[in-house]
């Protein structure tokens, strides 16, 4: 349903040009869960914003159900890493979830139903009238997820959504997103820097190179579903897959790290 073809993004021009994304192509099938993982600073967020229609790519294109993405598509929702900054602090959880529905052509009762249903599916029915900042970080990110679900997208893009919560909450949120994915039958494109997470969630893992970013390898994940934080993670296939992805990324980081070591060892680089 999503085709990304020869996508590239360059900031600036001439000598100052910074090539964030070199040449990225991949496809995401209907109802597939695809994770994107890569070394730090490899332009994952830039890639996602290009796909979401928030940034104009310099080269290539994205097709969503055969239609070229030129602005934010109606059937796509985006969840950011910074949950506390993507929610409106001045209004209730209910109004936050309602925000993307207000301009949709829906009856009021239908709108309320969507809001209540999506909040229920993330387990936040009790918090509907609270302010977002009265909730914990994990709960706030669940509000952001509920808002995306209420919008009824066919594809959900997530930009490192669980990077700023603690490890236990993170596990819970991973299971939550797998559950609502089944419940709402949506396609998910999920960017992360966490290798375990990328394997645990995915049908396929797309491993990126460092900038200018290219696709290094696409790793199919054929672990049984439903996944389980403990049982899945002790399967030999899981251990093998995560090691494989980790090796791919480590190889990507190695040249950069060697560069740092060389710079530190250079006597000219030391002051005094």
């Amino acid at each position, binding site marked *: 349903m999503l085709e990304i073809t020869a996508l590239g993004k360059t900031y600036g021009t001439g000598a100052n040009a910074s090539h964030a994304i070199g040449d990225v192509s991949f496809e995401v099938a209907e109802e597939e869960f695809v994770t994107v993982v890569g070394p730090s600073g490899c332009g994952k967020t830039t890639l996602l914003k290009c796909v979401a229609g928030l940034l104009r790519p310099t080269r290539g294109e994205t097709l969503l159900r055969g239609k070229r993405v030129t602005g934010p598509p109606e059937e796509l929702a*985006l969840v*950011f890493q910074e949950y506390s900054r*993507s929610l*409106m*602090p001045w*209004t209730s959880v209910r109004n936050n979830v309602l925000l993307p529905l207000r*301009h949709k052509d829906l009856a009021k009762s239908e709108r309320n139903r969507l809001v209540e249903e999506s909040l229920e599916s993330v387990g936040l029915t009790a918090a509907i009238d609270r302010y977002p900042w009265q909730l914990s970080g994990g709960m706030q990110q669940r509000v952001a997820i509920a808002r995306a679900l209420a919008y009824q997208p066919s594809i959900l893009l997530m930009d490192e959504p669980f990077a700023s919560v603690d490890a236990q909450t993170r596990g819970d949120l991973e299971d939550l997103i797998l559950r609502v994915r089944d419940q709402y039958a949506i396609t998910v494109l999920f960017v992360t820097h966490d290798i375990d997470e990328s394997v645990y969630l995915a049908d396929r893992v797309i491993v990126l190179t460092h900038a200018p970013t290219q696709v290094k390898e696409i790793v199919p994940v054929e672990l049984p579903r439903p996944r389980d934080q403990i049982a899945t993670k002790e399967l030999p296939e899981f251990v093998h897959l995560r090691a494989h992805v980790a090796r791919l990324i480590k190889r990507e980081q190695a040249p950069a790290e060697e560069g740092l070591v060389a710079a530190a060892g250079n006597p000219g680089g030391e002051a005094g």
Partner: protein
Amino acid sequence: MRMRTIKIAAEIAVPVAILVAWQLWTASAHSKFFPRLSTILVEFRKLWLFSQFGTDVVPSLERIGLGFAIAVVAGIAIGIPLGLSRWARLWAMPHIEWWRAMPPPALLPISIVLLHSIGNTQKVAFIAFFCLFPVLLNTIDGVRGIDPTLTETARSYGLPRFERIRRIVLPAALPQIAAGMRNSLSLAVIMMVLSEYFSSTSGVGYVLLISKNTFQLAPMWAAILLIGLLGYLLNLLFVAAERRLLAWHRGWRAATPT
């Protein structure tokens, strides 16, 4: 509880002590220019409660209210597009900086000539013009300071422009707009006195001028006391309203680190 006691002392006891000191000093000094507090208070009652309340206090309050309201509406209406567009700012900011730097008294004569008026039109226009700038500049800053994550969220959900302004831009900028409004409100009192002092036939500033010119020092002091009280009470009202309407802002700031 202790903090509360200290607060009450600072808010009430200290001003009362100053007034008592004023009374004691003036009673012994017998100065023509500094009448006794008791004399001033008697005059205050005679003037403002309520023989000249309708003829002088009400017009002044009307001018403040109207001028301030116009400034707030115009400041927000102009400030939002300027805050959203770098291009618009590029062209508009030099003009805003120019007029903002203009000392208000310098424009008093021209305001009378241009508006053919020493009545309400001129006073309200004068107050509105100078109260515009704090609201305008704070609106621009507030809009520019909106978290990009929030605007990108709105954009990714395809919110139409008007809806984006109404649901995101305006509420997000409101705490800073309120800070500007508070500055404007105290400025409105100053502009009211200034415009009435310069040319008028009614108002608290007018009473101040006439009393001074006729060496009636007790009414002059009574007018000064009233102007001070007006400014203080208006600010108090505003802060109370702000606390209610922007309660989320204090809660959010307390809950958010940094």
